[in-house]
């Protein structure tokens, strides 16, 4: 049993944190929010130099290969968790999740496909940003809800439909898009995956900022013609499920990083803010609240460790079930903690908690968005319930 970071991991975390503390301060973040460039190019280069873009990418595709904490065949790296927690802590706007975690996870499972291998290499080299477009309106977190169709033609496919809230879809150079080749809307079978360049005629990308400072896009496909080679999988559901599982683990780590920062800042504020002649941190009601925030964060951290280890379990029936339960439980619990810590950090800052000028509300908005991504805590608790009852 070991819960400490290995030496190289500690070094990686330290240097990444140092970089972010220097190069992505809250002022930098506010400047980023006003900027029309959503791709955070400078930092992407720095990430490439640090080797962070190669995490989880096979070494035969130019990545760092399988690192520690391999649980069976699927790899979910502790290093990814370190990067995501640091991102959460610094509020960094970056398409890291979309590119390296989500698309990296999809492509890694399909690396024998030559285009997927090339895309993986481009990611690792810092040449490409990517996004995963699978969720659709009225699908409500249900991964198998794919109404977008891919109709077979003489030389390929025609895609028709829409995708919604594609994380960092606005900055992606290319996208992994799910579309149905057979069966009905919610069927797990019959979902194919396509690798599509952003400039493909027939693909419309409508980008927008999201409340949490990140950005997303809605996609629409109007007679989007793709060559046959664009299809990288004709059975996309299991691949998507695993990738979203990793995405969930990554978001849990990001949330823990954000919660840590909120707790630290709230504690500091409570020691400095004086009313009635004393620091408000001396009021027992507020002390208990901060303790509860601390406990919620530690529980979130614990279950995040668990999901990091289990998200990549080998595919056999028992482990599959366990894996799904842990993923649902982690997202649900971290979502609850995130909501609680975010709301209470705002409350304990008084009026300062609701202003744009301070970082507190920004962390709160990011935590809110994390809860509402890949299934909110209520949805995930329901999923866990169904798995428990089966």
């Amino acid at each position, binding site marked *: 049993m070991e819960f400490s970071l290995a030496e190289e991991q500690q070094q990686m975390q330290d240097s990444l944190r140092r970089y972010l503390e220097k190069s992505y301060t809250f002022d930098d973040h506010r400047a980023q929010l006003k900027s029309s460039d959503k791709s955070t190019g400078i930092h992407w280069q720095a990430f490439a130099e640090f080797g962070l873009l190669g995490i989880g990418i096979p070494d035969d595709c130019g990545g760092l290969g399988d690192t520690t904490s391999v649980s069976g065949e699927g790899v979910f790296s502790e290093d990814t968790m370190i990067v995501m927690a640091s991102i959460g802590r610094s509020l960094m706007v970056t398409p890291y999740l979309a590119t390296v975690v989500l698309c990296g996870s999809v492509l890694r499972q399909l690396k024998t496909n030559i285009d997927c291998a090339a895309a993986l290499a481009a990611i690792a080299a810092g040449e490409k940003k990517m996004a995963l477009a699978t969720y659709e*309106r009225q699908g*409500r977190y249900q991964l198998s809800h794919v109404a977008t169709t891919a109709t077979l033609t003489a030389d390929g496919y025609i895609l028709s439909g829409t995708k919604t809230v594609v994380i960092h879809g606005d900055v992606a150079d290319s996208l992994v898009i799910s579309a149905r080749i057979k069966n009905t809307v919610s069927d797990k079978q019959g979902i194919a995956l396509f690798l599509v360049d952003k400039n493909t005629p027939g693909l419309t990308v409508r980008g927008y900022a999201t409340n949490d400072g990140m950005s997303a896009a809605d996609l629409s496909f109007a007679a989007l013609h793709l060559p046959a080679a664009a299809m990288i999988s004709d059975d996309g559901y299991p691949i998507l499920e695993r990738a979203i599982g990793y995405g969930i683990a990554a978001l849990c780590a990001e949330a823990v990083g954000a919660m840590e920062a909120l707790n630290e800042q709230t504690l500091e504020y409570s020691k400095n803010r004086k009313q009635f002649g004393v620091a408000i941190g001396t009021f027992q009601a507020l002390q208990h609240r901060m303790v509860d925030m601390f406990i919620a964060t530690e529980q979130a951290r614990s279950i995040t460790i668990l999901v990091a280890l289990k998200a990549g379990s080998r595919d056999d029936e028992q482990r599959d079930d366990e894996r799904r339960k842990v993923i649902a439980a982690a997202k649900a619990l971290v979502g609850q903690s995130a909501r609680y810590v975010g709301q209470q950090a705002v409350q304990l800052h008084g009026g300062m908690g609701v202003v744009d*000028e301070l970082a507190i509300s920004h962390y709160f908005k990011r935590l809110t968005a994390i809860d*509402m991504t890949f299934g909110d805590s209520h949805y995930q*608790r*329901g999923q866990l319930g169904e798995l428990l009852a089966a």
Partner: protein
Amino acid sequence: MNVDFSPAEQAFRQEVLTFLDTKLPANIRHKVLNGKRLVRDDFMRWQRILFDYGWGAPYSPKDAGGTGWNHTEIAIFDNECVDAGAPGLIAFGQKMLAPVLMAFGTPEQKAHYLPRIFKGEDFWCQGYSEPGSGSDLASLKTKAEKVGDKYIVNGQKIWTTQAQFADWIFCLVRTSNEGRPQQGISFLLIDMKSPGVSVRPIIMLDGEHEVNEVFFDNVDVPVANLVGEENKGWTCAKYLLSHERTGLNLVAVCKRWMRRLHHIARTEMANGKPLIEDTHFRDRLAQCEMELMAHEITLLRTLAAIAKSGSPGPEASIIKIRASELTQSIIELSMYAAGPEALAHIPEALDPAWHGDVGGYDYTPIVAGEYLNMRKLTIFGGSNEIQRNIIAQHVLGL
């Protein structure tokens, strides 16, 4: 015991409904019911319409030019206004300054300022909190130094709602440092156009401009603008608090947002069926409904107590706490019901003239901003921590 309005009260309600139906401008109604941004003119126009109808002072007694309504009638009026989509009356002039002027003002002050409030000629804001004086309001430092026939005011107020629209500000200022802090506070009326007054917007977490900082740099204020006695301003402030607590009941807002939540729940799909059929979601909706039922009756109990004894019983302290927490629960559930599409940040959507494509429904670009904005409810108006202290001390005797 019964929870019904009397026939007279029901008739009054009908009168209010008819008034709203005929007099509330459609464009204002649309803005309010759809969560759009309101401007100064919306408030002033509505105030004028009320005045022309004879209802310009719904919270004031007849001998001060008001409607003379009792607390129940006021609650009915407020409730129906919110329900119909009328903008909240500029609370600071109507609900806060007017009662203070009536109780503590000189005949000249009443004759001058009250009609201008009721006619919608002066827009008032409230200068209470300071950066160093939030919950501990009595520690305020903005100084008013008497020099001849004027006060010279220096200092700063914060969280001043709608100061950007205001013509006047009523301020608690420090006129003495002797004795306890409460004993050196005065209630002063200041013209926002006075040289030395400046307003700095504070942008909130939803990106909107609602509150401000107001700076006073050697501002000359005539002594005639002092309300009540010098150093007795805290009495005015306390007088207001006893009037204020039932005003923050938000019952009508909760009801309107519950109706919208039902609409969202029947529009959004989950697993191929309307969200309302998802039992996990429905449980949470039921939770909000039952809390709202209880909250409304607590409000009615409070009103009944006031009608009998003239002053609110202990129930009144619960009102603000429950109102704020319940409103937050309802808007939170609404945001979750609207789903991830609600995360898109579209500030243009708050513009009444905007008719863009949001990739959702009418409510989709509105609810997340409201969720974020409503976090202020448990903080402003006396934080819920302070409210709980009040109950602990003055109700439970702890």
